[in-house]
């Protein structure tokens, strides 16, 4: 069957209710375009979300979907994915949903390598509750719940995902739809958990949080597009690069090092240490920031192993028989 979808096939009759100018609109558009060319029948795609602005997403995508409860989307999606490995299951979440209330489910889904595509919209703020600091907000952030500045040390979401040995970890940006689409395709192509952090601007409560990556002048200097097998060189004039020294990733000028010392990106490195070092290059979206795939390695997926166990046992024992089951502890006749 050839699938000839257009973006419109993935739109619903529900009008999105995000604030005008929200980064979620561009992500929605990128995702709809991606789904249209992903090569999967619409009825076999399921979007599961939690709570928050980002989590309204499934209502606007014409597939199967569930807008569930705060933080639990990875757990719900796990139950769905392992019982229906024929489906393409996507988790739509935000920095509060995934990293605060739902942190536990996120790390366990990633360590198990459940075949979920987890898109975390990171706007570094609580939007739906009108502006409190989130687990990814910068320290000292002044919000309505932190008038003297937040005391929280933030998560680095990429480091967190790599720390639990997620098999696919990537970052993209709402305002670069082409890159977003490409990363979504890469996430789909990966067999196993895919964690994608999407920097997303909340123009109402945290506007310009990503200005160093989106501003006309700054972005050329600061975006580092990681490409597998390519030396990690960036800057307006490609004058800067990344080197790995004593296990740490560092910025330097291309002119200052031997060309052979420039780090050549290897997504498939089974050891997550180098990817982790790369994830430490930026603290929040400030200064030069890598975008793209940090890690893409093959590992047994939970879904396949789960179904395989059922199949193996059934093969060995034969299909279950209730009559045998109820007599399995020994019987007597009165």
């Amino acid at each position, binding site marked *: 069957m050839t699938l000839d979808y257009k973006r419109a096939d993935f739109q619903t009759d529900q009008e999105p209710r995000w604030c005008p100018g929200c980064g979620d609109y561009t992500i929605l558009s990128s995702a709809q375009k991606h789904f249209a060319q992903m090569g999967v029948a619409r*009825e076999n795609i399921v979007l599961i979300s939690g709570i928050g602005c980002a989590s309204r997403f499934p209502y606007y995508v014409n597939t199967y979907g569930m807008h569930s409860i705060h933080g639990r989307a990875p757990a719900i999606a796990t139950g769905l994915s392992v019982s229906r490995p024929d489906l393409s299951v996507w988790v739509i979440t935000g920095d509060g949903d995934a990293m605060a209330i739902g942190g536990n489910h996120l790390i*366990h889904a990633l360590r198990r390598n459940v075949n979920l595509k987890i898109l975390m919209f990171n706007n570094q703020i609580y939007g739906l509750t009108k502006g409190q600091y989130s687990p990814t907000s910068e320290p000292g952030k002044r919000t309505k719940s932190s008038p003297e500045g937040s005391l929280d040390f933030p998560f680095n979401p990429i480091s967190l995902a790599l720390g639990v040995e997620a098999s696919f970890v990537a970052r993209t940006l709402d305002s670069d739809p082409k890159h977003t689409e490409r990363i979504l395709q890469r996430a789909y192509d990966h067999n196993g958990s895919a964690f994608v952090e999407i920097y997303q601007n909340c123009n109402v409560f945290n506007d310009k949080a990503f200005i160093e990556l989106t501003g006309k002048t700054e972005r050329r200097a600061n975006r580092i597009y990681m490409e597998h097998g390519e030396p990690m060189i960036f800057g307006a004039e490609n004058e800067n690069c990344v080197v790995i020294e004593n296990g740490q990733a560092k910025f330097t000028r291309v002119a200052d090092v031997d060309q052979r010392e420039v780090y050549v990106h290897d997504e498939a490195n089974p050891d997550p240490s180098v990817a982790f070092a790369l994830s430490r290059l930026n603290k929040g979206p400030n200064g030069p920031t890598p975008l793209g795939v940090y890690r893409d390695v093959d590992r047994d997926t939970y879904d396949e192993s789960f179904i395989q166990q059922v199949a193996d046992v059934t093969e060995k024992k034969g299909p*279950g028989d209730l009559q045998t089951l109820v007599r399995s502890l020994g019987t007597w*006749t009165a």
Partner: protein
Amino acid sequence: MTETTSTFAERSDEPEVLDRLTIRFAGDSGDGMQLAGNRFTDASALFGNDLATFPSFPAEIRAPAGTIAGVSSFQVQIADFDIHTAGDDPDVLVAMNPAAMMAHLKDLRPAGTIIVNTDAFDERNLKKAGYVTNPVEDGTLDGYKVITIPMERLTKDAVKGSGVTGRAVLRSKNLLALGLVAWLYNRPVEPTIEWLEGKFAKLPEVLEANRRAFMGGYNFGHNTEQIALTFNVEPAELPPGEYTNISGNIATAWGLIAAAQKAGLPLFYGSYPITPATDILHELARHKNFNVRTFQAEDEIAGIASAIGAAFGGSLGITGTSGPGLALKSEGLSLANMIELPLVVVDVQRGGPSTGLPTKVEQSDLLFAFYGRHGESPLPILAPSSPSDAFETAFEACRIALKYMTPVILLSDNTIANGSEPWLLPDLDALPDISQPFVTAPNGEDDKYLPYKRDPETFARSWAVPGTAGLEHRVGGLEKDSITGNVSYVPENHQAMTDVRAWKVANICHDIPEIEVDDPDGADLLILGWGSTKTTITAAVNRMRRTEGVIVAKAHIRHLNPFPKNLGSVLAQYDKVLVPEMNSGQLKHLLRAEFLRPIHGLSKVSSEPFKVREIEDKIRELLK
């Protein structure tokens, strides 16, 4: 000097025949009392006795040895007639150490038999148990029939030559105790030997050690002059048929498997280990060839969340837990209520609140099951009344969940979960087909799928699973338009949806059996129970009718929400209604509120089940 022989002693004298016997094995957590009790039970079951068991053990896996906190016990009542409970006060107490005696002697019936492991009654153990002087010698046991046996020395003698040496030798002590009891009460030895042969097939030395210890205890019974007479309990005249001895957690697991088979669905069980519900997970995990998929989740919330996800995908989604876990599942239950997916939550109740008494029993989650959710979130609630009844009740919970597209709570408890009884195997072919076909075609105009369009009779919405082309739709926790399923903030719609969710559950009363009252004599007093109190209530009522000619009626509720539709009229027929329950009066509150009747309560929240005489005393009080 060993006294063991290589064969079991021959019996010469005729035993005295008893109609019933209650025996309690008590010892340290590491003494193997649950195993001894279970072997005695199985031997008696295969012999044909009716029986009921009550295991009791500490929450700690290895509480300090020799202390009262570490005492583990197993009580079983066997009879030659139809009994219901594990017995009030034991006739026989096996005390493996002073702590076991200190904890359990108060329960032994007057003139009862106590079998004492004298080797454990040294100064250190006596002190740990709180004895100043040795109760075996200081007159504490006057009035009881005492059988003393140096179990540790005899076990060492018996096991010698088996190949097991060192500290491992004394692990067979429980088999020695079991052997003595088997002699004293004329239990067949073959079932225990066969069980040992199966269990330790790959450990021939351990098998031999246990076999020798068992035989050593048996032959000690034959040789000792302390035993003049042995006893026997003849097989019971149970209704004819094939029986197995079953515990409630196993019966629950099998009932769920049977339901999934009869629904034609994969069974997905998402659960986090918690006492006393974990054995359901263990049992289901063994039966993947029934298309059972078990998922040990990262927490209780993920347990229910994964089951909801599986249900969305078309599985029979189930989660199991105990009180604290039910609290964590509350939000998930509300979601399942809102998105109207079938789901069964098994709550094996234990002592609460908080961690409470994890290995003890209460029925104190009833109101939580009714009301422990935010918003208006009614759902069906069922409770099994005995270990074997858990099979049918679990099946029924699944039937209701699937037919009405609703979460259902199954309220088991620790007594049911770990207790066991003979189960007359049901006609499995007669179990109903409970399959609910998925919707495969649009049900609205213009080829639209309307996820919240309802069946006019059941009020259930249809179940469209992912993978079905043309039925793509979104569900979620936000209130939905009553037809289209789109998010709706319209006040009239929310009122209508709240009402229909309530009606849907209330309407189930037309699809469940009416409550049956056992009232042969036209009583003024009705004893109304729910859950595991059934056995005790039945024993009390039967005994009082038989021995005192008391006129009293009894009935038992399996469907707690909605109630059977004749319950109100039944309650109105009686001057007095008594509800015994292991909580502070939760069903009593519900019945008073629902039916405006002056319900009497008998409450017990001591972590132990009712004794038959406690119910009898209350009946006498109300009949005065």
